[in-house]
């Protein structure tokens, strides 16, 4: 792998009319690197992902710089982008049933991605598609190739989606909540598969999720988003053991885990009070201050920026020390 990053995002804004949904997001995923982008609904994580793909819904505009494959994605025409989508940059969506074309056989859908980008004939593309399906450890690959999406299970469909995303050895795969729509017992299998496939190919991974354990299992670095901004960023092992932003801390604390259960009803799950502010009603200063136990006047007035260093947080009163609770090692 070369030293060129899989993607480098600088000061990304996504605007819709008078409102700004993503407010100055910057991050870099090195070649073969894996980053988790964590946030709740409305935090702007999915819009960030769609900006990278150049697939924002009509009416939304991305501003800033997204360097990928030696070019600024935001400056490319749709045709130029189309040549990269699925080849150097691909995406796995949340709901695999609605994301696959219902009237085409699965094999055809995978093969058409290969044909489009590799310029091979349909026989060759079919062969490659079959071998991809085999690599996805799908049972009876020939039958899967001839099946329609509705004939497969949820986990099988998501494997097919991953096969399509991997077909051309992209530099970066964006996975947007890839297991949320699946049955719990299947989630881990799919994550394992994605993990291996990404490792084997040395692809970069951007994992979009609200689920912290998934990020911990899959990623090296994590960026936590709140109300359109990254509030904390750094190596997973550090952010999740010694969070500096009170929001990250709150998220980690409020996960019910096996360790809480030993207490069996005697303690309360720590929770973040209040609710996520709507985009058109963002509080002044730090957007998190109304829910923050450490907030003071400065937090209400001035919005903090991400500080420097490898462990960055956007907070006037960052936490120190490691978590002593039961949630992290």
């Amino acid at each position, binding site marked *: 792998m070369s030293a060129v990053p899989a993607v480098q995002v600088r000061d990304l804004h996504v605007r819709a009319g008078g409102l700004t949904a993503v407010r100055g997001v910057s991050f870099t995923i090195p070649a073969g690197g894996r980053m988790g982008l964590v946030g*709740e*609904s409305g935090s702007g994580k999915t819009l960030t992902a769609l900006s990278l793909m150049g697939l924002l819904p009509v009416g939304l505009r991305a501003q800033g710089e997204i360097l990928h494959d030696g070019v600024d994605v935001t400056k490319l025409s749709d045709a130029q982008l189309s040549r990269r989508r699925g080849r150097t940059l691909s995406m796995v969506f949340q709901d695999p049933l609605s994301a696959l074309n219902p009237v085409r056989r699965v094999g055809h859908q995978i093969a058409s991605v290969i044909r489009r980008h590799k310029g091979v004939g349909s026989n060759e593309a079919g062969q490659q598609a079959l071998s991809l399906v085999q690599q996805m450890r799908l049972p009876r690959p020939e039958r899967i190739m001839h099946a329609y999406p509705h004939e497969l299970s949820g986990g099988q469909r998501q494997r097919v989606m991953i096969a399509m995303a991997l077909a051309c050895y992209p530099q970066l795969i964006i996975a947007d909540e890839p297991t949320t729509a699946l*049955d*719990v*017992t299947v*989630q*881990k299998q799919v*994550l*394992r598969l994605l*993990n291996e496939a990404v490792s084997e190919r040395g692809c970069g991974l951007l994992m979009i999720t*609200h*689920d*912290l*354990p*998934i*990020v*911990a*299992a*899959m990623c090296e670095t994590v960026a936590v988003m709140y109300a359109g901004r990254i509030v904390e960023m750094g190596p*997973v*092992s550090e952010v*999740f*053991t010694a969070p500096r932003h009170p*929001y990250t801390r*709150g*998220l*980690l604390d*409020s*996960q*019910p*885990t*096996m360790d*809480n*259960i*030993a207490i*069996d*009803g005697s303690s*309360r*799950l*720590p*929770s*973040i*009070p209040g*609710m*996520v502010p709507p985009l058109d009603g963002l509080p002044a200063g730090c957007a998190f201050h109304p*829910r923050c136990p450490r907030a003071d006047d400065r937090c209400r007035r001035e919005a903090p920026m991400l500080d420097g260093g490898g462990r960055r947080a956007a907070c006037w009163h960052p936490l120190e020390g490691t978590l002593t609770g039961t*949630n*992290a*090692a």
Partner: protein
Amino acid sequence: MSADVVTRSSEPVLAACGVTQTYRLNRARLFEKRPVLTALDKVDFDVRPGEAVGLVGESGSGKSTLTRLLIGIEAPVSGVVTFEGEDVGRMTADRRHRFRRSVQMVLQDPRSSLDPRMRVGTALMEPLRSLRIEGDHRARVRTVLGQVGLDEQALEKYPHQFSGGQLQRIAIARALMPEPRVLVADEPVSALDVSIQAQVLNLLRDLVDELGLSLILIAHDLSVVAYTTSRVSVMASGRIVETGRPADLFSRPGAEATRNLVDAVLTVRDGIAGTALA
């Protein structure tokens, strides 16, 4: 809630005894009999006064069917569902009314749980009006709002003016209005934001403690159920395959389905240790 209801007794307040439920499916082939799906196969399940029990399983394991039987909107093909020891299917109108009032439910998607064209105040009064419960309705509304942590301004508003977490509180408030003995919560937090889930789970636990409510919590996530309840039943292919204390289920899962569910739980700690996907 009056004191006599809270009295702990070993008699289950709501129970399913040997219930079986089948559905007819569409034919797959022309000249075959319509296949029958056995959604529930001789299932026993109960909840005692003031107890919080959990029901977990993958989709298709039969937990939704069991829920529908327990709340009485479906009747089993065999077996009985009993409320306070009495067969729900053979109740007198009087007892049936008491059953209706005493078993209430909170559903998954809070946005869909409230009629968008009905003010929250009206929606909260609905159970009292429908069940013709006498008394000071306004006072009851104030009490319940306090219990779920909402203020009275909410009453004049419409559902679209609230966030998901607030709507789930309102839905819980409505379920509490007729002073039920049993609250059935079907995936009450899976549609909510992570930072809100803990709030709602805590609220459910407090209600059990403070009101002596019985809670049946249905979820696919073992850790959510385990945190809130003291006894968990695991379902797989229409049967309850294992029942036990959450901590025991986690540490010594007996049935394969339980093991699968325990294995499926991801934690931050395992993730950082690099063992999550091993």
